[in-house]
């Protein structure tokens, strides 16, 4: 069966520091991959999605970036974090066919 892993589960970072969140999927090949951010008390905002290695689409312009160095690995990065980057970050995957998205357990990011 397919599984999705996100780490770390929680992260506290100072303003201006870099960020790297990792997401990996097991048990499937060539998945679509997604990064979402969920601000406190709000819905989910799609940040990036990828349909293949090296293919990244950005939905919201910001100081975050994403990369897909391997088929089942999706990384969310920032060179300098802002206070507004605080939130709950969720990675998700879906198959190429008519399947819904499946989510990881998320990373709670707090910026001090």
């Amino acid at each position, binding site marked *: 069966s397919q599984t999705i892993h*996100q780490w770390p589960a929680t992260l506290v970072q100072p303003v201006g520091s870099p960020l790297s969140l990792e997401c990996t999927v097991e048990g499937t090949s060539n998945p*679509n991959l*997604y990064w979402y951010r969920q601000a406190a008390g*709000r*819905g*989910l905002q*799609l940040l990036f*999605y*990828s*349909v293949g290695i090296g293919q990244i*689409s950005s*939905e919201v312009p910001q100081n975050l970036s994403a990369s897909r160095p391997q088929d089942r690995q999706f990384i969310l990065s920032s060179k300098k974090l802002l206070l507004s980057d605080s939130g709950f970050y*969720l990675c*998700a995957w*879906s198959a*190429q066919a*008519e399947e*819904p*998205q*499946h*989510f*990881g*357990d*998320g990373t*709670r990011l707090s910026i001090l």
Partner: protein
Amino acid sequence: AQSVTQLDSQVPVFEEAPVELRCNYSSSVSVYLFWYVQYPNQGLQLLLKYLSGSTLVKGINGFEAEFNKSQTSFHLRKPSVHISDTAEYFCAVTHISSGSARQLTFGSGTQLTVLP
């Protein structure tokens, strides 16, 4: 472009009572619809989905939803709730397309609180 409106941000209900969580969407093309549940500090878990066929969809944990195309709604229902159903519920929509990533648009969520 599509949008999703969850009409109630908070729904308190007593244990063993029925519940309905409302969801309306707008889209210029045909859509797929989903309900997800999120427990505190966890990711989202798929409850049910509507892709095609019967408009009444049954999901996990005793939940069901009915797709109403004329009213552009996809309300979630459960005849008798349990304390363990306390969570946030998200309605989501994606347009029907082939060969591309499915970009989900989420509603803002409904917090269901089941009271003893």
